[in-house]
């Protein structure tokens, strides 16, 4: 088990009649960045909470560092770092106090907790805000502080539940950069996201979840290769004309997807497909040729968009 800190078999979570996680299997390798990609309600957070030992599983097996969360929660949590979806910093305390007291929960001495806090504030670029009240920080700074706090016990695995939801693009890029550095230091990252760009940027491997099940698994590249074409042509017609325009374009490329606001043609050569569409008399308001993304994979696998 040394190389796989987290292994799940038939992992299931029920809330009353509702099946949040429906018998999923996965294993996470040491040192990799592993992602759970899916829309809201796919079961990502429930899975993360079970791994974090704050949600008893209904059935199935879950092994973390070779231990069972239902028997050894404290021992497992001592080796995990957790960044929850909702901020849970202590707003009565200063930035540095938040880190020091959290270190104390892991039985660090006060001196050691202070030493690590200073180091981590440096790492997340908050040193000059060390004495500030948490209340005064921006959303991105709070997230970075939460990440610093999750590292106070020098965890082997860090769980990040939607780490950049609600942040502006610049704040997201700063955060991604810090997470990338962590990965380079050999920390195993486990994250959930409903942003395909985040998954593509950060994850070595990911599973696509929908309705509590895993519908695909692989690296971002292999998922795109397996489930989508190389290129995608996006055509936008006048309002309500997308569906009506579809029959004329039938047979171009490998596959077509009609969405309420646009029409997608999946093809190995996007430019050629677009020319063919024009040749058949299509006059879209806008046309765009781009590479396939995980968003397309998700659409293909579930028939739905990631972000509603």
């Amino acid at each position, binding site marked *: 088990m040394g190389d796989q800190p987290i292994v799940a078999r038939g992992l299931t979570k029920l*809330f009353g009649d509702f099946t949040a996680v429906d018998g999923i299997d996965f294993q996470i390798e040491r040192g990799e960045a592993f992602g759970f990609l899916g829309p809201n309600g796919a079961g990502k957070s429930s899975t993360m*909470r079970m791994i*974090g030992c*704050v*949600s*008893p599983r209904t*059935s*199935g*097996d879950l092994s973390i560092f070779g231990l069972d969360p*239902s*028997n050894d*929660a*404290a*021992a497992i*949590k*001592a080796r*995990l770092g*957790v960044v*929850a979806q*909702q*901020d*849970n*910093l*202590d*707003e*009565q*305390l200063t930035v540095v*106090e938040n880190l020091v*007291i*959290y270190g*104390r*929960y*892991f*039985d660090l001495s006060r001196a050691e907790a202070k030493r690590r806090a200073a180091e981590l504030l440096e790492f997340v670029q908050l040193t000059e805000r060390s004495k500030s009240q948490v209340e005064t920080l921006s959303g991105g700074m709070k997230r970075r502080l939460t990440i610093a*706090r999750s590292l106070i*016990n020098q965890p082997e695995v860090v769980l990040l539940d939607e780490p950049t939801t609600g942040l502006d693009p610049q704040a997201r890029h700063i955060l991604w950069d810090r997470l990338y550095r962590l990965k380079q230091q050999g920390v195993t990252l486990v994250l959930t996201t409903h942003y395909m760009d985040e998954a593509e940027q950060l994850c070595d491997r990911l599973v696509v979840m929908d309705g509590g099940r895993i519908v695909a698994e692989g690296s971002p590249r292999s998922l795109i290769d397996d489930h989508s074409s190389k290129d995608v042509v996006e055509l936008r017609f006048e309002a309500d004309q997308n569906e009506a325009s579809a029959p004329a374009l039938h047979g171009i490329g490998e596959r077509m997807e009609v969405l309420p606001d646009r029409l997608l043609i999946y093809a190995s050569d996007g430019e050629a497909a677009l020319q063919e569409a024009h040749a058949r008399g299509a006059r879209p308001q806008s046309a765009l040729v781009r590479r396939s993304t995980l968003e397309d994979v998700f659409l293909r696998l579930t028939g739905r968009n990631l972000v509603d």
Partner: protein
Amino acid sequence: MPSTIDRISASTSRTPSRRAIGRTWHHALHVVEWQLMAFRAVWRSSVLTSFVQPLMYVAGMGLGVGALVNRNASSTSALGGVRYVTYLAPGLLATTAMMVASMECMWPVLAGFKWQRTFHAMVASPLEPADIVLGEAIYVGLRSLLSAAAVAVALTIFPATRSSGLLLAVPFAGLCGLAFGMPIAAYAATRERDSAFPAMQRFVITPLFLFGGAFYPLKQLPVAAQALAKFAPLWHGVELCRAATLHRLQIGTAAVHVAYLLMWIAVGLVATVHSFRKKLLI
């Protein structure tokens, strides 16, 4: 499912080992440390309030009501032959502890679950819900003691309320505070909003303050009201504090009052662990 069976047998056969109790205790002290860290910012105003408020009661009630009561021989005998202000003063230790502990166990508890989610952050560390609850109990006990001590210091200013028994009354008041705090914390942890808290203050805490035996003997009340007042922890705390400052402590009676307060604390602790678990481990 073998894993489910394993889990059930593991949880039923698990008896709290000495090591596990030691760990809970150790973790709880970290929670106390957290509370004190936050309290450091507000302790001056909090202690000052506990010091000034009893002075106002002693001055207002003692001078005003006391002058009327002390003039009447039958009233004085109903109070056990002491001046009104001497009778009144020890009750303020218990009522102050009750109010401070109740406050600490309403909004701050809900903040830990809803507004700041600090308890959720704690339970992601090696701390377990029971550790957090024990830490909260120790902190609320300390807060009750501290506020009662501030009242005691205020009471040493006047000869009529000064008593060596105050030293014993402070821990009695601390118990009284905890006996309120723990059941209220158990309740607060089940709430989604703070809408019930002001009602609790208006319809539980304030009536007890007025009818709980702090200002006059319970015998002045109708029998049904007496029974209600005796059910709540406050009267027992007031009786203990008063017996201490008037040097009338009888071991047997005191033991019954203490046992009754300990029962409230124990039931409150168990209920709080239950409601914290339900909120934090879902």
